[in-house]
């Protein structure tokens, strides 16, 4: 059967990662033309070729709730379950923004809390434009807004995201430092005195 998950992937997750996408959406993807024509026999390397061809992100669209190529590729990645390092490379490359968007979404689905924040937050600095396909129209957003949606919302692109631990909790457990924005650094240099932002760091060093 073509829609099988990599057996090793099932082992490492404890369940079939394809189940991260609900059954109805999954069935829709298996039935759609893009999946059948373009996704068959893809590997972790060749899936990149398809990802760079993406022209928008999105979930289900139109009156028939058709799956976008974007979520087809998400399901494909769940089947393939490529190594962490490969996903990291997808996120690191600066050439193809839709590959970045795809990898970010995938990582939000499979990564653990700390790793999700660590890998996705640097993308807050990335303001390249992205098209997002809604039900009946397109919106223009930016990579930083995309990441913000992934980290804050429960549903993105008609897919329910796994629960993400609160950032505060991870900071208090000292698993994560405060997010350091480039803009914040810039402002601090300009102010050259103790502004409200320095208190933020103090708060978490006081917590035991």
């Amino acid at each position, binding site marked *: 059967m073509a829609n099988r998950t990599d057996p090793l992937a099932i082992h490492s997750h404890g369940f079939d990662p394809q189940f991260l996408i609900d059954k109805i959406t999954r069935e829709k993807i298996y039935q759609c033309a893009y999946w059948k024509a373009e996704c068959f026999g893809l590997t972790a390397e060749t899936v990149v070729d398809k990802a760079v061809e993406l022209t928008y992100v999105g979930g289900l669209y139109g009156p028939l709730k058709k799956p976008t190529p974007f979520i087809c590729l998400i399901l494909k990645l769940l089947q393939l379950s490529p190594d962490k390092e490969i996903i990291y490379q997808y996120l690191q490359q600066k050439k193809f923004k839709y590959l970045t968007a795809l990898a970010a979404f995938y990582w939000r689905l499979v990564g653990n809390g700390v790793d999700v924040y660590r890998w996705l937050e640097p993308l807050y600095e990335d303001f390249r434009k992205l098209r997002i396909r809604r039900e*009946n129209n397109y919106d223009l957003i930016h990579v930083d807004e995309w990441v913000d949606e992934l980290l804050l919302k429960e549903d993105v692109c008609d897919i329910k995201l796994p629960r993400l631990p609160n950032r505060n909790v991870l900071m208090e457990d000292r698993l994560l430092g405060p997010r350091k924005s480039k803009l914040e650094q810039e402002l601090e240099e300009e102010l050259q005195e103790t502004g409200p932002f320095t208190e933020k760091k103090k708060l978490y060093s006081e917590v035991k």
Partner: protein
Amino acid sequence: ELDDLGLELPDDEDRDVEYELELMKWKIRELRRLQREYDRDEERKRELEEIERRRNMSEDERKKEDEERLRRDEKIREEKPKIA
């Protein structure tokens, strides 16, 4: 550029000439997020301070405060106009 349903795709090209403008727009978004994070931290700080304050009180003091709060809430409830 049209898609499969005949909808027009918005322009998503990142041009060098728009860089400064896009950077400004990004700064506004980023500032909003920083403000949000700051508010969240302040909220958490207040929460921790409150927990600490209650911890440092004796059992009687805590009880007294709880009763006062209950009375206050009761009063507010009574003063509220009832739905006819």
